[in-house]
């Protein structure tokens, strides 16, 4: 039924050794200006999140350096009502209730007091304005966006990696072995692909969120698991087609003749020749999953409170727009847009570079 079955073009592979393919691809990519710019941006982001991960930058993103919703420095003088909220007490100034008669700690009150006196608590002054503004706790939005990039890209990369690995292994087994195994894999694929993707994600999320078995994996690992376990179907489809194509080619037959095992033929001989498909799919899925993370975080199924992602920033910023504090929305939205744009363009260029037939 599908186009795959009808494509029996058994022309010999142009480049049997993978270095040739990759070198050529790299040369083509270098000529592609847009691709190179995109690559630079992506590498920049990757360096940035490595820096954030190792603590070189944005280490103190959670420090409250400004007042609540500190203005961006270019709006330094603007009114900031939110910074001046004061708390009030219900109880008038009456003496504290005496507990010493029932308190098991009463014998140590004196020691406690002496120790307290020795501890100094210093409060750092808070800035009225920050480079690109502050969030409600007075944290620097730029630092938050950098740290948020780390989480979001990490989730996107790892989930895409998992999806690619699942899709590749299943696709390889199905395409190469065919027969019963192939039928079974096709069935498995059909099951997953017949459920609308969003619904599949929500179903997994609903189950994982209330499952006691998943209790220890809440937060980032859960998001990665949901995305990785549901997102492999497209990759499976493509890889399977590639393996069907390559399975009947001469170099694989030659490998068989010299006694290479099935697994060796699949993963040592064929895989390098289809790895460019994996790579393109991987980068495409990174983009898709970064966007999905935002939605999951918005739904409260995302990253934990002591870390930050673009998704949690957008979820937070949701109500800030109405009160005129647009900078968090802008910071997260723009940095995400830049990375995703660059990543998408890089994906396009990679595809062009790796597979010159498709334009």
């Amino acid at each position, binding site marked *: 039924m599908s186009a795959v079955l009808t494509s029996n073009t058994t022309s010999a592979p142009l480049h049997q050794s993978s270095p040739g393919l990759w070198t050529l691809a790299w040369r083509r990519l270098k000529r592609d200006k847009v691709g190179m710019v995109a690559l630079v941006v992506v590498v920049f982001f990757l360096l940035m999140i490595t820096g954030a991960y190792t603590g070189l930058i944005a280490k103190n993103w959670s420090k409250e350096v400004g007042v609540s919703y500190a203005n961006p420095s270019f709006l330094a003088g603007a009114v900031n*009502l939110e910074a001046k909220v004061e708390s009030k007490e219900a109880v008038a100034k009456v003496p*504290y209730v005496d507990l010493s008669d029932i308190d098991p700690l009463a014998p140590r009150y004196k020691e406690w007091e002496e120790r307290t006196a020795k501890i100094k608590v210093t409060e750092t002054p808070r800035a009225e304005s920050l480079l690109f503004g502050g969030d409600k706790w007075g944290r620097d939005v730029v630092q938050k966006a950098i740290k948020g990039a780390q989480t979001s890209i990490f989730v996107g990369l790892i989930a895409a990696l998992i999806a690619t690995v699942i899709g590749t292994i299943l696709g390889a087994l199905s395409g190469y072995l065919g027969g019963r195994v192939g039928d079974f894999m096709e069935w498995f694929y059909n099951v997953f692909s017949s459920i609308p993707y969003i619904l599949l994600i929500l179903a997994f999320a609903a189950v994982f969120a209330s499952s006691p078995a998943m209790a220890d994996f809440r937060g980032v690992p859960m998001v990665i698991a949901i995305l990785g376990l549901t997102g492999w179907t497209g990759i499976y489809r493509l890889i399977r087609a590639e393996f069907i194509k390559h399975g009947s080619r001469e170099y694989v037959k030659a490998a068989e003749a010299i006694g290479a095992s099935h697994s060796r033929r699949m993963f040592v001989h064929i895989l390098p020749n289809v790895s460019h498909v994996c790579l393109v799919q991987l980068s495409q899925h990174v983009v898709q999953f970064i966007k999905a993370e935002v939605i999951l975080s918005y739904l409260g199924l995302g990253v934990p409170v*002591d870390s930050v992602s673009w998704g949690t920033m957008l979820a937070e910023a949701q109500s800030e*727009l109405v009160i005129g504090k647009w900078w968090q929305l802008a910071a997260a939205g723009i940095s995400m847009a830049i990375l995703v744009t660059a990543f998408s363009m890089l994906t396009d260029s990679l595809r062009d570079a790796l597979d010159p037939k498709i334009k």
Partner: protein
Amino acid sequence: MRWLVLKVGHRRLSGSLFAAFLVALVLPKLPAHAVEKKTLKIAFRAAETGFDPQKIEDRYSVGICENIFDSLLSYDWLARPVKVVPQIVESVPVGEEGGTRFTFRIKPGIYFANDPIFKGKRRELVAKDMEYAIKRFRDPANRSPYSWLFEDRIVGLDEFVAAAKKSGKYDYEAHIEGLNVLDKYTISFKLREPDYNFIYFFTLPIVVPVAREVVEGYASDTMAHPVGTGPYMLKEWVRRSKIVLEKNPDYRGHTLETRYANPADPWDQAAIKSLGGKTLPLIDRIEISPIEEEQPRFLAFMNHEHDYLEETPAVFIDQILPNGKLSPEMQKRNIRAFREEAPEITYDSFNLDDPVVGGYKPENVGFRRALILAHDRSQEISIVRRGQAIAAQSPVPPGLIGFDPTFHAIEQEFNPARAKAMLDMLGYVDKDGDGWRDLPDGKPFRLTYKYRATEDTARQLAELWAKCLADVGIRMDAVAVQFADLLKDRKVGKYQVSGVAWTADYPDAQNFLQLFYGPNTNISNDARFKWPEYDRLYNQSLKLPDSPERNKIYREMNRILVVYAPWRYGVHRIFNHILNPWVLGYKKHPILFTSFKYLDIDAVAQKAVMQQ
């Protein structure tokens, strides 16, 4: 005539899309007399579940039931502190036989709203309807979330339920010793133990008489077929999207009691001016749509789509009430803000059975108290609540019977130095040099805090506590849990620290103090606090009516709670309800959820501004 047109219209609406289309085209062209119909449009913060009083618990569903059903007792609308008054009974019963017997006499001549199930006959409310409702609470088939109200309380009821469970047949005709229908209108309860707060149960909009033939006639979906004696009827219900109430034409009418009004309170005076002497209710139709997201709910009000907005989300408060005063824009629109100090508390409880945060030894107690001292509650109030909250000093909110305005303890005041000193003193110091404190025996530890997923405020609170504890050297992981799971985990003690809120079911401090009563573990004592002296005082307080003597016992109980610290007290929230100028006589009752019964609208002014 008008009613007829609309009723026909509705039948067609549910008929076919085409008919709906026609009606939509025709309706706006109806003669202008439709104007005099007063329609109120508002939003709820969350979706309702249904309107079978004995099957629900969420405040939104209960709030609707408040208008469809009549509880035996209710509250005077204006009196503060709140005052229990009879609603459909002749008087508020006094506890007889040492506070173990309560007898209600229902007023004759109160009728259920007309319903096809009554086959055209008027159906009078009788004492048996109340008995039936009480039995429904314990019927296992109903899974009533409020069945605990009548557990371990009425003589013979528990035995009856146990026997019914064994035989598999729940017989509504069976006679129960403590549940006596004395005559057509009189019902009398005999309790096992004295309990002066028993009368409060009969103010709850869920402890209401229901007609057995209605429940059985609509057995497949009782949630959608509430038939009561109250001022409104459920006209239309698109679940989780729209609730339409319309005036019950058979309703007897009620009036505003002005006796307890506060002459100095402008809201009371405005209510008297708009509603005094009139037969209520005045609103003909109420359309409610649940909008969970804060932005659309707020913008819908700002955009003239709703008449008022209750519980303005804290984030937007500076748009409406900068520095506690209405903003110029709001003033221009003549908008008013009603400020309500809600009878509730937000809190974090510790699981006292937990090996790390639990226990009653001095070092356990000191550890918990250090955690509380490390928490910066002023940030909770100023940033998370935007100033719309009062720091709690005890579990009892202000305004409740038994609240002690002179009670506050230094143990509740944010003081990181004292927290650190306490931790140092008890041996919770960093022994392995990783920068985080370890247990006195040298083992490293992390605390886990469970909070409600999908709620932004809960997340911010979790963020705040994790941050504050990090400042004194303690790691806390915050875990978002679906609300239902959170309640479950708390119930069975599968948590370390977790945060929720408790709102008064009735206006007595006991409703909050029962949350620490040892035998209530696995029921409502989620902290699993068990302290014999506390339980003794609690039992003693039950046997007393409201009195200085009982207040003294309450104070003693509060002292125990501060010392052993099963909770970190959060805040009592302040809600700001903002009203368009044509909303007349508005007042919010601290216990009752809705205000529809005592409200009017200037329909002409409304029509001029509101989006239709």
